[in-house]
């Protein structure tokens, strides 16, 4: 018995060397979509009923709108987003050489605004930033997530993983306690997902609007009665990066719909 257990443990170690105890093996990774009821799935699947598509359309309009002192639109440099932005969001957060740290898609959009358009950065969770971000990420719908593959990101992925594993707040819970160890169970009647960030920014019925992954992370932190990190904080970016690397291979769904 213990012999076979040792063999299977060794086999597991050999096939998944990067996996820590409690982490979900690649073939068991599931989008939050698979935890939803048929009505919410149908809402996401049909572009004419998916409320996130309204933001995507707004983002499409902003893409070609000239702005800032440079009087340039995104499209003036990047052209048709359907080609130039395809697959980009599946690689974010990505390493920024000038800053020597990972930046989120929202931060990249704002870096473009200040560096190339000479425009003021858009506030986190503002309609325009969510719309642009949704429009760009929508071009990756169906693309497999590869964020975190860049070797320069390794220490930041590890920082994110440490944060994911660390208990915090008055309720003294870590992300891993629910999203690795107890997905599929019910918290106050609602299914716990694996926390795979496949569809951000996404339309959450509870919010009645589109929101970023950082907003979602902050509400989980508030839920365990911890002090939530500020939007754009390096810790939130590291967590976002770890979560995306943890969702490696899952297809992007932006704009997803979630309860």
């Amino acid at each position: 018995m213990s012999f076979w257990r040792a063999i299977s443990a060794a086999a597991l170690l050999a096939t998944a060397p990067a996996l820590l105890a409690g982490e979900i093996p690649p073939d068991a990774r599931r989008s939050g979509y698979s935890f939803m009821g048929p009505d919410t799935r149908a809402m996401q699947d049909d572009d004419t009923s998916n409320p996130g598509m309204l933001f995507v359309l707004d983002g499409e309009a902003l893409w070609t709108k000239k702005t800032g002192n440079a009087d340039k639109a995104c499209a003036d440099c990047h052209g048709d987003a359907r080609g130039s932005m395809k697959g980009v969001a599946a690689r974010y957060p990505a390493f920024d050489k000038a800053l020597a740290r990972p930046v989120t898609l929202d931060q990249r959009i704002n870096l473009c605004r200040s560096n190339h358009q000479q425009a003021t950065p858009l506030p986190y969770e503002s309609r325009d930033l969510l719309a642009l971000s949704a429009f760009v990420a929508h071009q990756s719908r169906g693309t497999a997530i590869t964020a975190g593959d860049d070797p320069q990101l390794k220490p930041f992925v590890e920082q994110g993983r440490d944060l994911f594993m660390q208990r915090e707040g008055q309720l003294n819970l870590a992300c891993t306690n629910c999203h690795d160890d107890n997905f599929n169970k019910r918290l106050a009647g609602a299914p716990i997902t694996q926390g795979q960030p496949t569809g951000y920014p996404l339309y959450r019925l509870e919010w009645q609007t589109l929101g970023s992954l950082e907003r979602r992370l902050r509400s989980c932190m508030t839920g365990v009665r911890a002090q939530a990190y500020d939007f754009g904080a390096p810790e939130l970016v590291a967590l976002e990066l770890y979560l995306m690397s943890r969702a490696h291979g899952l297809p992007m769904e932006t704009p997803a719909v979630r309860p």
Partner: protein
Amino acid sequence: MARASVHIAALIAASCAFACHVGAEELLPYNITGDGIAESLTGAPGDAARGRALVLARTTTCILCHSGPFPETRFQGDLAPDLSGAGNRWTVSQLRLRLVDAARFNPETIMPSYYRTDRLARVGRNFAGKPILSAAEIEDIVAFLATLRD
């Protein structure tokens, strides 16, 4: 007259000191005997009816993870054991310590320590230095759980 006002001032100072103590939510001391806390945290018995209401209130967090004999709500969790029969499985003394500091029995447990304020990280500003439940709330919940017999 002067003496009386000195007495009153002393009385006010004393009650303020007491009130400030309570305001800071300092934990009442308790003694662990065996695998439980034999005496009531407040020195008084809890109220089982209030305890039932507390268990069902989302703010206490109990039924986020636990289910139990609560037909009036379907919003119950299944991350933790059903509370039905809790009064058979545990003594009052054991229930009290499990609410106060469940991690004492299993450091890996997901059950929070409801009457502990140390060894916690990044506690939210509104909750810092406060236990999840007050001593009186714990006593009410313990009194209720003890009534849950199969």
